[in-house]
């Protein structure tokens, strides 16, 4: 019963109670406090994100660096990977071979060497395959043998050209033809 009287008292004097409102300053402080907590949480998340990104980039960079600089011969497919010096020599040989082959083709004498050059190409392909599994110290030997096989191709073409030119000094080479795809040798 006593409680009902108290409730009735509050009900009747509500307007008087609602007259006192907290100042705006109080509300401002509360809001600032809440904003501060939110900012701190946001900064923590951002720092964690940056750290994760740095770790991710570090791993990617290291992985790429490891991949490109690998000395494992299993990754060696082209001569370029073994060394620029060898690659340059290979390119020079390729060019010379191409040039002499075209010259020989102009004498219509390609048939004389075609099979032998094909055999050398097969050997070069075998050596290239071997490079993928050879231990590092042997890889360099294999590259030397590869280059040696290119040198032999040049030597064969030079000798045949030389003999043909010596034997028939008056024979002019046929007019240069447009190279066909199967005229190319690698």
């Amino acid at each position, binding site marked *: 019963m006593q409680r009902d009287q108290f409730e009735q008292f509050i009900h009747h004097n509500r307007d008087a109670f609602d007259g006192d409102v907290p100042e705006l300053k109080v509300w401002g402080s509360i809001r600032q406090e809440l904003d501060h907590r939110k900012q701190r949480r946001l900064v923590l998340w951002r720092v964690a994100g940056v750290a994760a990104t740095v770790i991710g980039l570090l791993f990617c*960079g290291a992985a*790429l*660096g490891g991949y490109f*600089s690998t000395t494992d011969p299993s990754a060696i497919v082209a001569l370029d990977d073994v060394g620029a010096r060898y690659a340059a020599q290979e390119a020079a040989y390729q060019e010379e071979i191409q040039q002499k082959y075209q010259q020989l083709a102009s004498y219509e004498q390609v048939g004389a060497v075609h099979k032998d050059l094909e055999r050398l190409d097969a050997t070069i392909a075998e*050596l290239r395959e*071997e490079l993928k599994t050879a231990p590092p110290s*042997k890889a360099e030997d294999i590259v030397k*043998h590869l280059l040696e*096989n290119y040198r032999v191709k040049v030597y*064969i073409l030079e000798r045949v050209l030389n003999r043909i030119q010596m034997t028939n000094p008056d024979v002019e080479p046929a007019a240069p033809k447009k190279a066909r795809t199967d005229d190319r040798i690698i």
Partner: protein
Amino acid sequence: MIESYKLPARVSLCGAFVFVLLLTLAASSLKAQSSCDCETYSRLIKKEYEVYPTVLVNISNKYGPVRIEGWAQNRIRVEALTEVQAESEQAAAQVFDRIKTEMNIQQRLVNIQTEIEPAKTSWWPFPGMQTADYSIGIRVYLPRPAAISLLNKHGKVELRNIMGNISAEVISGDVFGSDLEGEITLNQKDGAINLEQITRLNADLVNVEGSLTSAEWIKVRSRSTALRFRNITKLESETRYDNYFVDGGGSFFNEGRFDEISLDQVREVKIRSSLSRLYLDKIRSNVEVEADSSRVRITDVPATCRKVKLEGRFTDFRVVLQPSVSFRLQAVAHHAGIRYPRALRVTEEIETSDRHTVKGYFGQPHSTAGLVEASINYGGLTIEED
């Protein structure tokens, strides 16, 4: 209050790219620096058993030398030495695990085989485990009459003091041998060769350089090869783009193209060649040359030489006789000229527009004197006296 900055997306992307690039370079240099701070670890497997003297020994190896030596015991001893260069014992152990040298030894048959498992690719990009280097060397002592079948890739082969037959395939490796009494069948690509005191050799050689000394019979098929032969009783060859130097010996038979062949003091020569250069000096007994589009020089022909037979097409022949030797000449040239010295006593000479025939003799006109017989189409023949 903390302010938050927002970078434009493009700037962040560029920054990340530069960062990755720098790290890539750093990792590369790190790896390059650490590529060989290696030590050598080795594993030696030794086995020795009693076998029949005529045991057949099969050997297959890769990336290392093979040495086989005959001894005066009916036992075989096999030593397989694997050497690994690695940065740590753990890394070396991983390589040893990949390399297996199988040895199956029975009294009549021995198999020695090197098997190399491919390297496991590691997800770990940092150096250390992948840079190991290795070689596998095999050394065998066996009874002298034992027969050998051998395959070796990327390693040299040494054979000493063996009586049995040897069949060998050597790819990218040198071959050295001495005192080999059985028949050798050799297939060699890219390497050097040096064989001494052998009996019989049947060889296929591609891009090989070296010498063969003192043999009874050699048959060679070769391409772009440079060989020096000394004292070979019978040498048969099928050649292309080769350089041969033959000192002494019995007979030399050749069929080839684009070669350069020099023979000195060989007893008997028979060559069929085209687009080649042939230099024959002091041939002791017989010369028979059939040449097309070639250059042939036969010099210092001695009195012991019984016959020089030349057949040519578009070929320039030059024959120089030793002074004061007796020789007969019978030469026919179609669309070609025959030149001879004043010392030739001409018995018959007919010259038409396309044919030139010369018969005569040097020295005394006896029928036992040596004979130079030539038949030429185009090209030319020059006979000289030294």
